[in-house]
């Protein structure tokens, strides 16, 4: 039962990774409010850490950050650091919070997204890649955070539904909350 649950979680994460990577490359460039763009790598890290699988979630978040860093114009390592911290903080309880308490999980995810975008802009300012303060706050940070929160909705919604005979995100397989609890 535990093995089945673990495999299912891995398949789910793989599907999520592909979706978020494609969204980051294909959707994010064309979806903007002022200078803010959604960060699907951040969303991936939030979702994975909220589903709670300890060290594995940390590693996935780290590589999501590396993917972002390599495909963006910012210094490599910054987003990897941020997503690792986000995954560590959000995944502290090591349980599937999206399934058990989706609203609170979404709220925490939004707080993490807002904080991560703020730290991102702050770090860029510190290495000389920032702009005027007001522009950074109102035209980059807040729009990007808003888009992140908006883009997080479908992911939390899809993963919060009970998955007795199948799984959202196109991954099939059996799972149960019992199995998840046994793992903990």
């Amino acid at each position, binding site marked *: 039962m535990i093995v089945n649950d673990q495999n299912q979680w891995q398949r789910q994460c793989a599907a999520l990774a592909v979706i978020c990577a494609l969204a980051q490359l*294909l*959707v994010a*460039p064309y979806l903007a409010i002022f200078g803010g763009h959604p960060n699907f790598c951040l969303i991936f890290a939030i979702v994975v850490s909220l589903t709670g699988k300890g060290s594995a979630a940390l590693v996935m978040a780290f590589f999501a950050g590396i993917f972002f860093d390599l495909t963006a*114009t910012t210094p*490599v390592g910054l987003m990897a650091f941020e997503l690792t911290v986000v995954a560590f903080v959000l995944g502290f309880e090591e349980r599937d919070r999206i399934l058990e308490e989706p609203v609170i999980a979404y709220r925490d995810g939004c707080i993490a997204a807002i904080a991560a975008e703020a730290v991102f802009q702050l770090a860029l300012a510190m290495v000389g890649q920032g702009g005027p303060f007001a522009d950074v706050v109102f035209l980059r940070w807040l729009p990007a955070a808003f888009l992140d929160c908006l883009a997080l909705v479908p992911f939390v919604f899809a993963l919060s539904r009970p998955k007795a005979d199948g799984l959202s995100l196109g991954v099939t397989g059996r799972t149960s909350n019992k199995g998840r609890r046994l793992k903990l």
Partner: protein
Amino acid sequence: MAARNSLGGLNRNSDDRFRVFAILVVISVVLFTISCREAGSGIISSVQGAASVIVSPVRGAGALVTVPFQAVGNLFSNLTAGEATLSELKAENERLIAENAALKEADAASERLEALLGIQSSYDLVSTGARVISGPTDSATSSIVIDKGSLAGIEVGMPVTDSMGLVGQVRSVTPTTATVLLVTDERSGVSAMVQESRAHGEVVGSAAGTLSLAMVTPELTVNEGDLVITSGLGGVYPKGLPIGVVTSISRAEGDLYQTIRLRPVALTGAFEEVLVVTEVSQEQRATAEEAEEAQGQEIGDLAQATDADGPGDDEGESAPEGPSES
């Protein structure tokens, strides 16, 4: 006993988690430090370039995927253009509309390419055409990615134009792609002048995507509707490329310079094909007289600053910087 085992497992998991977290944080901080120190040339930059090359087909596919949506957008604009147009279009069947949209796209692409050739010959630009494959992928910069890189002779610093005017400057290059920092980015600065009055200044962008002409003193005449062009000072941008049209001019009490807002002439946000200027000839650079003229305006600025502050009042006074190109 089982509970104790379970707690023991939980502690082990927590320890592992802390250990993995610490390792990953150290790795990312090291990568970040090296990346910042490399400043665009080094192993991490090479890996970043390689990653950009690998994902460029996906980005290209994304650009192609958006073409039909742009066609639908154009079609929607046409449908909402007027009642007569709307009723006529309603009468047509879906196939014809789709064909029409496709033909319009082909026609528009042809017109854009002709316009690019036009600007290339008008300004006698030594340039390479490129296709835009992605917009900005992060919230840090206003930039685009084009499908030509160092293999096509593209280098960092080269100016980029579309059929209407200046788009930006190449910021980083990989073998098959290049990232162009848009002129509307807040870190962009272009030495420019008002075509009518020859008032020199610096065009700077903002995170909102707006442009403004900075460092123009009040005695220099600037009118709404005036065209702002590159001045050729510094030799980075060829002289005379349109940048924007003056939309508003204001000056608050005590301000040393006018606040001049511009509307970009380049098709900001809707780039599809662009020209990368690979060489700026001597004729396209500012002449010695023009450089002197710009210098004269700077001296005038300084004199006015001194006058405005009053004799002996030199606290916080500084000479204004001349227009610069980045």
